[in-house]
């Protein structure tokens, strides 16, 4: 096993200490150095060749975003995780950092109150992110590791579905009989802000269906993300509010710390936000949205799972597929982390696994199907030709 070599960059001594101590507990990780500002960090990256960097945003002499911008010129692929504060300014800076090439972010330990809480945050949030951004490194060798009976015991599964093996090949489903699509639901996590910024502008303002997005992010971040997307996309994008009425050609992003569901109310479909229990350790959770969409729209749902860590969205896709709907997953090549879409791709529920740049086009093709007029039965042995009517 080769350990993951981490460089910790932060101007606060206490943060450097907390992060270093926690990371040292993990046998797969080695903190190879610390730096107190961006300028020192750039020098140390050259000397130490870390596998990954954790980077504070606000630092004297050279801030994190400037350092990141410089770093990307020489190290386009080196994973960087930003530390962000849960303030409006912190959220804006984090979104800037992501668009400048940061791979992910975690909430700053100093912001969660006590040192113990901060350490806990690092353990639960930062450790998994480091591991998922350094695939193949820092893994304990199964054969030589001591057997631990209690650890091997699997937790009782909360769902009747079986997860696909982690290294299984892509397995596409046999598509359901195609139905008209009435709602587009999207689940995305790590790498999401950039993926959405690249993908959503490909959806035309005339998109005939509403779009519902769960992006795993804290409050404030989701509102800023919606504002930024709205400025660059043809469809309107807003942070969802409880009771919003769905209409075509508009996208709603689930607010941080709330689940987002849809519910029929008379002839309308409206958004319901609530603080029910986390699912897959997430709120908002993709599974919650997808499940409610399948309940309300039946087979008329197109579900898309984009880049992200973990497996939120996989069970939701099984529900969508089971109800007769359609699922798509982003491919490994273009995903920052191929966790969520990987589960969907390997799990036999996706009709297609696509590079990010083809996702919007595929969505448009699928939602235009059977529109605006009901299609008559087409002969199956000949592919239909496509026409533009102006």
């Amino acid at each position, binding site marked *: 096993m080769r350990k993951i070599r981490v460089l910790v960059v932060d101007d606060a001594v206490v943060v450097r200490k907390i992060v270093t101590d926690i990371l040292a507990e993990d046998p797969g990780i080695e903190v190879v150095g610390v730096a107190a500002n961006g300028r020192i960090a750039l020098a140390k990256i050259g000397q130490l060749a870390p596998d990954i960097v954790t980077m504070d945003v606000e630092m004297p002499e050279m801030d994190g975003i400037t350092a990141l911008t410089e770093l990307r010129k020489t190290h386009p692929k080196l994973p960087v995780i930003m530390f962000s504060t849960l303030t409006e300014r912190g959220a804006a800076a984090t979104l800037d950092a992501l668009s400048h090439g940061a791979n992910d972010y975690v909430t700053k330990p100093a912001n969660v109150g006590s040192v113990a809480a901060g350490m806990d945050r690092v353990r639960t949030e930062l450790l998994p992110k480091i591991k998922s951004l350094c695939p193949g490194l820092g893994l304990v060798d199964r054969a030589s590791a001591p057997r631990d009976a209690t650890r091997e015991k699997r937790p009782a599964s909360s769902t009747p579905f079986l997860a696909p093996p982690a290294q299984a090949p892509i397995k596409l489903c046999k598509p359901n009989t195609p139905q008209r699509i009435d709602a587009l639901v999207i689940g995305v996590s790590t790498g999401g802000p950039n993926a959405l910024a690249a993908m959503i502008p490909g959806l035309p303002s005339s998109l005939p269906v509403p779009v519902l997005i769960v992006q795993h992010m804290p409050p404030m971040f989701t509102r800023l993300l919606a504002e930024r997307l709205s400025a660059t996309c043809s469809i309107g994008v807003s942070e969802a509010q409880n009771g919003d009425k769905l209409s075509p050609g508009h996208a709603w992003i689930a607010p941080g710390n709330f689940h987002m569901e849809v519910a029929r109310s008379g002839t309308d479909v409206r958004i319901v936000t609530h603080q029910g229990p986390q699912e897959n350790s997430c709120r908002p959770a993709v599974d919650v949205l997808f499940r409610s969409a399948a309940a309300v729209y039946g087979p008329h749902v197109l579900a898309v799972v984009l880049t992200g860590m973990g497996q939120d969205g996989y069970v939701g896709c099984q529900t969508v597929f089971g109800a007769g709907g359609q699922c798509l997953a982003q491919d490994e090549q273009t995903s920052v982390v191929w966790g969520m879409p990987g589960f969907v791709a390997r799990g036999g529920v996706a009709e297609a696994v696509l590079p990010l740049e083809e996702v919007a086009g595929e969505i448009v093709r699928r939602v235009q199907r059977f529109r*605006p007029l009901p299609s008559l039965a087409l002969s199956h042995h000949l592919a239909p*030709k496509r026409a533009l009517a102006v």
Partner: protein
Amino acid sequence: MRMIVGKILTEIGFEIVEAGDGQEALTVLSQNWPIDLAMVDWNMPELNGFEFVKAVRAESAYDEMKLMMVTTESEIEQVAQALEAGANEYAMKPFTKEVILEKLSLIGIEAVQS
């Protein structure tokens, strides 16, 4: 007009994408490529039929697509310009499914189902 064209084309086996004006049509075209056929009304807001044909034919990526002008008798002289600019055929309103099928076969498109 779009409704009628869309209905006929759907009946004969086309998948349809629609646009409300010439400018939107260019966007729709780029987002839905490949497209085999565009049925273009002469009278469109933003970009009229003639301007649309010129814009499409200026882009070599769309060379394969057939363009059919939809016109009324009073516009027939103007349509001649569109044909010169690269439109493949025209259909005069009002028309039937049979007329469209015949026009399509003239420009080498075999309908999936008639």
